[in-house]
């Protein structure tokens, strides 16, 4: 398996020389050898033929170097109403010179924090792309929010991409937040390229007791982005973590999001909205691990699919034997606007405790014709009525964005898309 894997363009990356974290690197290489790249028979990638896609689309696989980002580029790309701090990346490499100085927290290159236990949260054994990133990323970003620091300003990760065809970007971020820390992160990508590229991202988030974190992502980098992300967080006692992922474009996108509920009275929330058209393929694999009693998880992913697009949702909920009094909810709802659009949705509940409240449901259907007719009989034009219904459907996810300006921005993007496409 391994030699074959290395013969692939993407597999050859594993030999890319990267400094520091020797133990973690070799552990990751081993994990790579054992797993190999996903093929048609790999259960976890059954509907997302990422290896094939990468082999077809990437010509000459090399790591992308950083490039110069100017303050102007940063300012002109800020969404309206944003008044927080910005951390800038160029092809995945942190650019301190154009990033905000944020008081009270520590921000530095991950490579300068060599005792960071990378790979202990997002484990390379769980996903081969996570392993590739761990074995070969360079630079990386380290963020530490000390105890009792409640960041009033949101941190925006602004990821600029400018590369030649076939290049690979491997961002890696480690975030640790002390007890009682609170912070909101927004992730946004600005693509300055019109060739196909591959982003392989890993974010590990380590929370303390009573920490409260929000993590928002907007995936809208155009139809030539191939992306795999592994975002994983440990959630301790009395803490909350909430994620909202809005996916609007991409050639093939795979989001692995995992929440580990490790302390009682902890709460993990995952929300997602995907509006897909053309041949966009978006796959959300989520995982929530209830390890202790009295924790709660909520999950709602919704999709609207047009043209030849494809959506995949796989939601694992694992409730361990000790995790009594767990509340776990999961929903995935999809509307297909075209006969050629496809959704594969699969809830995967594994419940070993007996005193739990778990519910899950998934639906895939067309726009509700009854509702459409009802609106029309009140004098509302068909297109507008469709827009109202689709927007109402999507709005249930957008509601979970607690950052007002970002919510307004996403709402506008969604409205534009729903208005334009019908």
């Amino acid at each position, binding site marked *: 398996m391994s030699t074959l894997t290395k013969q692939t363009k993407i597999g050859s990356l594993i030999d890319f020389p990267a400094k520091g974290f020797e133990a973690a690197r070799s552990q990751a290489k081993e994990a790579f050898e054992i797993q190999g790249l996903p093929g048609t028979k790999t259960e976890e990638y059954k509907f997302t033929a990422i290896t094939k896609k990468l082999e077809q689309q990437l010509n000459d696989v090399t790591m992308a170097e950083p490039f110069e980002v100017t303050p102007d580029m940063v300012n002109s790309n800020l969404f309206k109403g944003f008044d927080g701090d910005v951390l800038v990346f160029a092809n995945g490499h942190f650019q301190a010179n154009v990033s905000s100085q944020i008081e009270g927290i520590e921000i530095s290159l991950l490579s300068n924090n060599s005792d960071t236990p990378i790979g202990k949260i997002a484990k390379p054994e769980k996903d081969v792309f996570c392993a590739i990133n761990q074995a070969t990323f360079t630079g990386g970003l380290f963020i530490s929010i000390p105890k009792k620091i409640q960041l009033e300003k949101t941190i925006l990760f602004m990821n600029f991409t400018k590369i030649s065809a076939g290049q690979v970007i491997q961002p890696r971020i480690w975030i640790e937040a002390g007890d009682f820390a609170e912070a909101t992160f927004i992730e946004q990508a600005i693509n300055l390229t019109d060739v196909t590229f591959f982003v392989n991202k890993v974010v590990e988030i380590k929370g303390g007791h009573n920490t409260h974190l929000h993590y928002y992502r907007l995936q809208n980098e155009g139809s030539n982005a191939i992306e795999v992300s592994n975002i994983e967080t440990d959630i301790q006692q009395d803490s909350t973590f909430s994620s909202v992922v809005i996916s609007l474009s991409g050639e093939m996108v795979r989001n692995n999001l995992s929440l580990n509920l490790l302390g009682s009275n902890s709460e993990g929330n995952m929300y997602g909205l995907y509006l897909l058209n053309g041949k966009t393929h978006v796959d959300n694999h989520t995982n929530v691990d209830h390890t202790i009693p009295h924790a709660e998880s909520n999950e709602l992913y919704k999709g609207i699919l047009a043209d030849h697009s494809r959506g995949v949702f796989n939601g694992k909920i694992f409730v361990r034997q000790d995790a009594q009094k767990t509340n776990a909810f999961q929903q995935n709802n999809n509307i297909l606007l075209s006969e050629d659009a496809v959704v594969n949705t699969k809830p995967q509940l594994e419940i070993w405790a007996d005193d739990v409240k778990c519910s899950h449901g998934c639906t895939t259907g067309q726009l509700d014709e009854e509702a459409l007719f009802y609106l029309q009989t009140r004098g509302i034009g068909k297109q507008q009525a469709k827009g109202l*219904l689709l927007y109402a459907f999507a709005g249930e996810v957008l509601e979970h964005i607690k950052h007002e300006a970002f919510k307004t921005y996403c709402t506008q993007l969604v409205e534009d898309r729903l208005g334009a496409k019908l």
Partner: protein
Amino acid sequence: MLSIKNLHASIEGTPILRGINLEIKAGEVHAIMGPNGSGKSTLASVLAGREEYEVTDGEVIFNGKDLLEYSPEDRAREGVFLAFQYPVEIPGVSSTNFLRTAVNQVREYRGLDPLDAVKFLTLMKEKMKLVEIDQKLLSRSLNEGFSGGEKKRNEIFQMAMLEPKLSILDETDSGLDIDALKIVSNGVNQLKSKDNATIVVTHYQRLLDYIVPDYVHVLYKGRIVKSGTKELALELEEKGYDWIKEAVDSEATV
């Protein structure tokens, strides 16, 4: 105002309406009664423009216009209003936004300026009184979690907002207790004028004590098989439909 001639309609190839003839003049109230499944809601839906029903024959002229040529939204803008037998719940669409969109699209079609937020709210408050609908209901998603009675009241409230020329009330009385029935009827009566007309579809003569019809028609097997005045409703209440069914069915076998 409305002239229906020899209207035939079917769904998925099954004929449901089989030659309806009906003339309605401005200012009139017509009641349509009939056993379950006779085609009353189908007639209402065909008039409102539901696409699942295929009109296979006949014509419908509304204020000189060929109604069947119009889309559902344009029929509404021309002044046709259908109060649904089963109003649809629409999660995520706020009642107020929905109504404002509707009112302004109808106004635009009629060549009127859109109402701004203040004027719209004033109009809404005025019409809310008419059907004694609670503000709280309207701050929720459209019909979502409304009780049966609240939904029916909301239908009449929407009718009041849109000021139609022809209102078709499909069993708006079903499931209402007597107080709610009085409120709803009172609303309908206040909206009545010499320039508009109302069709009330009902199973119960009770409603007709409050909304007094000029004519009562009995629909059976997709045809109007008997027409009369409000006394016909009393007779139906007393004797049921069997005598009419028998008369029609024996005729059909001859």
